């Protein structure tokens, strides 16, 4: 490192994350997390979800404020468009998860990021959710994420960042692998 070099800072506290990892062998239970949200029907296809608490690091935790999200369907679906559709929230989750991962991995690899942008696109065939063709699934038939990244790194290092981010992404895993879902009615 030369005297004029500025330390890499992507705003990610990698030491804190690695600190957690190093304590796991002695206290594996602190890794057990539970994420939560509540949802209330408003009207039509419009609902509002709140996210406030979660469990992790061995105790109850709280966001610094309650976050609220409206979901609806667009006017073209004869709905009121009071919020984005649930499937678009899935894209929001995937894009933000992969991008957070890119920042964290870049920090750990001492790569300074200048800009990271991605466009996400998900293909879907409405025959599925409309029940018009039993051979068509309800969900996405495919998802494409296209990154534009400006960073102090070679093209191969940037490709490796994006690949590692997918490898460690929770939402990428949730979308690419089956997950058991239990829905109860009280």
């Amino acid at each position, binding site marked *: 490192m030369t005297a004029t070099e500025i330390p890499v800072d992507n705003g990610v506290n990698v030491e804190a994350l690695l600190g957690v990892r190093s304590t796991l062998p002695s206290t594996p239970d602190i890794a057990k997390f539970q994420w939560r949200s509540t949802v209330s029907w408003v009207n039509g296809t419009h609902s509002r979800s709140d996210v406030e608490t979660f469990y992790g690091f061995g105790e109850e935790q709280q966001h610094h404020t309650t976050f609220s999200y409206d979901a609806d369907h667009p006017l073209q679906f004869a709905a009121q468009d009071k919020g984005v559709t649930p499937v678009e929230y899935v894209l929001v989750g995937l894009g933000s998860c992969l991008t957070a991962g890119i920042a964290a991995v870049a920090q750990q690899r001492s790569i300074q990021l200048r800009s990271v942008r991605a466009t996400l696109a998900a293909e879907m065939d409405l025959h599925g959710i409309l029940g018009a063709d039993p051979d068509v699934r309800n969900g996405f038939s495919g998802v494409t994420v296209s990154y534009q990244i400006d960073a102090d790194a070679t093209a*191969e290092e940037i*490709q490796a960042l994006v*690949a590692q981010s997918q490898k460690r992404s929770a939402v*990428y895993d949730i979308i690419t*692998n089956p997950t058991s879902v239990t829905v109860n009615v009280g």
Partner: protein
Amino acid sequence: MPSTNTVIIGAGHCGLAMSACLTARSIDHVILERAEVANSWRTQRWDSLRLLTPNWMTRLPGYQYRGADPDGYLSARGVAAMLADYAHASAAPVRTGTTVTSVRAAGGGYVVHTDQGVWHAPTVVLASGAAAVPTTPGLARLVPAGITSVTPARYRSPAGLPPGGVLVVGASASGVQLADELHRSGRPVTLAIGEHVRMPRTYRGRDILWWLDAAGVLDQRYDEVDDLVRARNVPSMQLVGTPGRTVDLNALSSAGVRLTGRLAGIQDGVAQFSGSLPNVCALADLKLGRLLDTIDAWAGTAGERFAPTAVRTAPLGLDLRSGEISTIVWATGYRPDLSWLHVPVLDRKGRIVHDGGVTASPGLYVMGLPFLRRRKSTLIDGAAGDAAELTAHLAGHLDALAGRRERSAS
């Protein structure tokens, strides 16, 4: 109760290498072997299996391959014969037909129970193998009735499987070799692929192992790598012991093997594959690129590069009740069998905790595990270096014990 300085459990290449090093230091020892020398090579290998390393790399303490085919690859039977000759030439004190039933700490040493009597020794070396038991994922129990499940330890040849399509789960050395062999036998083969290590058989006109050996990649030490946990969990290389033949995913898919993502679930008889295939292929391509860069940096000039892994549309589901698949080959890894070890050196997942083969229980050592002390610790060629260093540690421990006895006696 017979006693000795060291009990070595297992007469494979690791146990025999350790024995040779102990003999060189005149440390009295015995090797307890459940069957005969190189038992797993005789009983748990498929017919066509050959070593992944060329013959010239078959080196053990005091032994080097001197046959007519230094660039060939030994068959499993050839390995067994070589180890039997080595045991004989080095006069290894092997007690064959002696199955260890328990190892317990007692009186500053260890009591080793076997079906042929009880041994007492201040030091014990666990050399019964990293690949003693095939591991299968929990979802294997969800496979519909009527489908044959087989592990590489039981598989012998395509003729031993029922007719029909085969799903090979796992794309490390065993998985790609069996997918290749089964496809060549004329069966439709689907290969489910998670993280894997892509490797060309030859690079710049030489065996890839020549480069890894010459450039020092295989000698990288466990106390020098950035992330040892990760290094110890790297899957085996996609190699087959056939001169000039590469069995990477491009080779398999061009031949007609169908590639899918990792087997992620089985629901109502339908196998579900992960959508992560493009990324695991990208990870493997990038990792291979970095390895070739390392080799080129050592060589001083750049060599060829291989085409990126071509990922076409991969199926996400496969109905196992349709009759398309008659057999599933679980090439999903192996683990040691330490069920008889009653010394508290295992972690919460039952894996032995060690520092370069030295456990926290004084005088108890382990050999042959992935990246034990070097990247080549699981290769035959890795046993000599590991055995020499562990013997030095073990001798120091025996000296300390002897010093303690002398001090207490005086």
